[in-house]
């Protein structure tokens, strides 16, 4: 029993390690693990959750996770989708938030919205909807650059 638990833990660690190299198709600076899409490894399955119910990247994500697992000889692991608890931006890792900022997308921090280029907080929202379901368009009023913000969700 103890060794089975340990085997489960090490499988889970291995899966998370493999999937931390699988990029999100729309925001490739983040891995699917950074994004909080991969929930757990349980009963022979990797449990994932969609960001937005209609996000077209969901299918692409599942395919790339499948390919990464197969390449590591883990073809017997299934992929299951769980909707509950619903994904929110709080599932994005701290590391993921930093990566977003470095990539030029303002991370979904509720506290300070700042331009990812010059750091100014003198910014305005141009459109509540952006290039993907998870982003909104903003503009920096100091350096004048437009930028995407990952929506707080």
């Amino acid at each position, binding site marked *: 029993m103890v060794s089975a638990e340990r085997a489960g833990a090490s499988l889970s660690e291995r899966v998370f390690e493999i999937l931390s190299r699988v990029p999100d198709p729309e925001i490739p600076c983040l891995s699917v693990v950074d994004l909080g899409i991969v929930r757990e490894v349980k009963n022979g399955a990797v449990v994932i959750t*969609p960001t*937005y*119910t*209609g*996000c*077209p990247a969901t*299918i692409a994500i599942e395919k790339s996770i499948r390919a990464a697992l197969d390449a590591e000889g883990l073809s017997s692991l299934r992929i299951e989708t769980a*909707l*509950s*608890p*619903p*994904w*929110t931006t709080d599932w994005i890792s701290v590391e993921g938030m930093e990566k977003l900022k470095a990539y030029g997308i303002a991370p979904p921090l509720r506290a300070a919205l700042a331009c990812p280029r010059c750091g100014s907080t003198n910014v305005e929202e*141009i*459109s*509540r*909807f*952006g*290039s993907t*379901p998870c982003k909104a*368009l903003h503009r920096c009023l100091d350096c004048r650059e437009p930028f995407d913000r990952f*929506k707080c*969700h």
Partner: protein
Amino acid sequence: MTDKAELFAHAIRLGDDALILGQRLSEWCGHAPMLEIDLALSNISLDLFGQASQFLRVAGEAEGLGRDADDLAFRRDALDFRNCLLVEQPNGDFGQTIARQFLFSNWQLLLLREVGAAPSPELSQIARKAEKEVAYHCRFANEWIVRLGEGTAESRARTIAGLDWMWRFVDELFDPDVGAASLRPQWEAQISPVFSEAGLDRPKPRRGTKGGRVGHHSEHLGHLLAEMQFLPRAYPDATW
């Protein structure tokens, strides 16, 4: 009705509302007055398609005849759709589209909250997820009602005309036969401040038109389905 039949009926209403409005909004793609609006309407459409595919999947499972979400979306005829009449109304101009969205999203938000708190696990987890998306749709529509109402004489006139047309389909949203009547006071409380902020009067009450929940649709639905269903019907072996 058995539990399964009730779940099917409930899920199909939720799924069809989302599917048909999603299809209507997708007609704006590439035609909206500004790029930002094009993005917004397409994003709302996409959210609704995502919700529809989940609700219709649950409907198919409850029905137990092996139909999946795609079968239900693309291989049913108009008489079998259970969406409300509001969502099948043509887009008209931008004022009319926003009027429809305003009335619908404010209602859908309350409905999803109710479904999210209900004991059915199949529907409640989808509803709790969808509610977060619809909160955004509501804010978008409310802001545009205010902007258009306070805008030019033309934007105001078109929005009033849009609201006046769409208002006749409101009663159906609260049809006691499908158990949504209790949401009306909350809905009224939610939309009233938007009317005041926009400086618009509420549309005059008129006799409500209904029928969508029992499959009696307007002619518009057939045209919408003809376009939406053409490809999978003409090429049944096509895959995504």
